[in-house]
């Protein structure tokens, strides 16, 4: 339908905007050190079931990488590999290398709490704590043992400003976070993540439970955040992927079918299945 043309129109606009980066990147291949996250020969199993098959992918810092693909193809599983949130699943098993900031996070001695401070996560359904707005944002600092009231106050304020929530809540910081609207709750959850100063932010369909206006606000936010953070986002919405991401990876039944610059994936995908999916023919 006109789904395709809309998405492609978006890409055309984007294409002209991104041109200088594109030429630069196609010229010389990057060294591994320049990537924020690298996965090599990654296999993930839930018991007997293999959810991810031999994934090789590199993610650049200060960019937005979108993971797309039909339900159940392993996007969330892949995302949760980066902050080891799958560890709580009883029969979860992983093989291969996952390197974040030049550290293999599954084999080297790393502190998992520290990893999660560096690699923050925003979930599909807004999940603020049943506490005040202030305490939600302060939580990450408090569990680190930060006592400095002045520092916490400043951090809460700056984090809320970053997600453009400050003006809406500054007079109600003591209000329960559950009283906020869905869109506000999700921005609060992002602020809560920012407060612990992560380097990577993982987002698992962060707008799928939100109305279009709230979705727009969060998409706008991504443009600002990518200047300071590395963002990996799972999305079901092709237009969203086209709008917000620099790179796109298409997953299908546990395989990474294709990845590359968003402009390229959406205009001239090299795999038929990618094309079928982004044009809405299945999924």
């Amino acid at each position: 339908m006109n789904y395709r043309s809309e998405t492609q129109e978006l890409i055309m606009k984007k294409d002209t905007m991104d041109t200088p980066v594109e030429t630069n990147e196609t010229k010389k291949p990057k060294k591994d050190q320049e990537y924020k996250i690298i996965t090599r020969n990654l296999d993930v199993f839930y018991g007997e079931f293999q959810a991810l098959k031999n994934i090789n992918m590199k993610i650049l810092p200060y960019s937005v990488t979108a993971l797309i693909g039909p339900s159940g193809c392993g996007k969330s599983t892949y995302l949760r590999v980066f902050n080891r949130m799958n560890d709580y699943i009883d029969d979860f098993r992983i093989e291969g290398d996952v390197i974040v900031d030049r550290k293999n996070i599954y084999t080297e001695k790393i502190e998992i709490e520290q990893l999660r401070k560096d690699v923050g996560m925003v979930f599909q359904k807004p999940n603020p704590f049943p506490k005040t707005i202030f305490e939600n944002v302060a939580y990450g600092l408090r569990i680190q043992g930060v006592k400095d009231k002045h520092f916490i106050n400043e951090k809460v304020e700056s984090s809320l400003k970053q997600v453009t929530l400050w003006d809406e809540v500054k007079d109600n910081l003591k209000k329960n976070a559950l009283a906020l609207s869905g869109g506000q709750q999700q921005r609060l959850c992002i602020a809560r993540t920012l407060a612990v100063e992560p380097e990577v932010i993982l987002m698992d369909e962060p707008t799928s439970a939100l109305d279009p206006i709230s979705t727009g606000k969060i998409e706008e936010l991504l443009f600002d955040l990518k200047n300071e953070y590395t963002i990996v986002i799972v999305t079901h919405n092709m237009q969203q992927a086209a709008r917000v991401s620099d790179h796109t990876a298409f997953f299908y039944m546990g395989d990474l079918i294709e990845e590359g610059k968003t402009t390229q994936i959406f205009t001239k995908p090299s795999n038929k299945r990618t094309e079928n999916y982004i044009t809405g023919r299945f999924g």
Partner: protein
Amino acid sequence: MTSRKNRNNRLKDKIFSVWGIISTLIGLILLVIFIGDIIIEGIHRIDWDFLTGLPSRKPEIAGIFTAMMGTIWVLLLTAMISFPIGVAAGVYLEEYGKKGRLSKLLEINISNLAGVPSIIYGLLGLEIFARIMNLGSSILAGSMTLALLILPIIIVATRESIKAVPSSLKDASFALGATKWQTIYLQVLPASFGGILTGVILALSRAVGEAAPLIVVGALAYVPFAPKTPMDEFSVLPIQIFNWISRPQHGFITNAAAAIIILLVITFAMNGVAIYLRNKWQKKIKW
């Protein structure tokens, strides 16, 4: 064909619902008769003197003060002992000891323990607390015995309440770099506290009515003075009631009825608090 089948089913439906209503009514009517009988018998006996009176051989001047103080002492101590142990065990089983055969075994046994007759706990308490630990027939020994009795209930209630905490809450905490203990302490326990407290109160309201295990441990029917320390001898309301009922004078039957009313009031009040907490908690945890 189908319509006859339908009619048949509808008839069965009717029979079932009528049967259900009758059964419920029988239960209710019996309860009303029982409570009504007791109230008629004993309500006029309840006054300040009865509540503050010491035991006596004359029914008209005998009061329940020592037994009531004993019940309060036992209740408080039982709560103080069973609450931390039960909650800790529940948290451990639900959050830490999930895997492995040992925890499965523990789990089944804990469920079974809830069905063990209370007099068995009494024997255990007599041997371990009263004799081996040399606590004698003290309030402490009695309370520890009752704590043992209600531990399974508290553990199960704790586990159920913890299970009801949405996993998204834990995810959020872990994703911010919280340790397991921080997540349990700062998120899981506060979110499940209403449910845990409800379970604890319901368990205590069971303990308050127990006479058998305390008799085995050595609680007395006649204690001249209200207990002052956990090491004192004691009586409790159910034992006092039991004792009065077995006396020949009618005056003591009246006293027993009056004491039963007091015991019922205590139990209903505790259940009321439990229901209130549960409702309040359910309202708070709507996402």
